[in-house]
């Protein structure tokens, strides 16, 4: 089984900590995805984001993603940290780090992980605007 580290935290994420978790003498490549809070969405100015998480299930779903990624690519180690609570512009919402012998697999596994996380992991994001708020993706 692949070496995995998963955390859901309500304090600021440290991307270097996540990167350090996947270092390996067998790795030639590490790809890191960092999701940050943008100051606007669909041309509307964003004040802040609020993330809610169903922690126990979210951790299990992230673990499934890592397992699936390591079946598809030669992943050495993978770490996923997700933030919850109130986030300001520029704050880090998620960090995913993947190490692999070669770079192509690291890129592909990392992109697969964030794409799948956004589809399956029970975490919800509310965008707060000057004039209201909306749960992202809730409605068609």
């Amino acid at each position: 089984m692949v070496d995995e580290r998963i955390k859901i935290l309500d304090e600021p994420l440290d991307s270097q900590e996540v990167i350090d978790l996947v270092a390996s003498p067998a790795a030639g490549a590490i790809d890191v995805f960092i999701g940050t809070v943008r100051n606007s969405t669909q041309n509307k100015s964003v004040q802040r984001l609020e993330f809610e998480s169903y922690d126990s299930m979210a951790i299990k779903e992230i673990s499934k993603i890592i397992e699936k990624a390591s079946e598809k690519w030669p992943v050495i180690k993978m770490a996923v940290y997700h933030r919850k609570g109130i986030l300001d512009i520029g704050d880090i919402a998620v960090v995913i780090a993947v190490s692999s012998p070669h770079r192509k697999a690291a890129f592909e596994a990392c992109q697969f992980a964030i794409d799948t996380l956004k589809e399956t992991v029970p975490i919800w994001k509310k965008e707060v605007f000057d004039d209201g708020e909306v749960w992202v993706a809730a409605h068609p």
Partner: protein
Amino acid sequence: MVKVKLFGIAKDIVSASYFEAESGVTVNHLKQNMIAQYPAFSNLRSVLVAVNDEYALDDVVIYENDDVAIIPPVSGG
């Protein structure tokens, strides 16, 4: 009774963190019941149910000791 956890917009719709469901009903029954009681659920892109931290199919039966949650459309990352 089964205490059904609510998250995100589901929590806003019900205006509570929990919803009380009968024990012994199917996931499908639970969803239909929620929609009947709170029509706003029918406007969502999807409503899934998790039982014991796993997405559950419609015919799964929920019991008092199960960990049940309503999963509205996720938007992490």
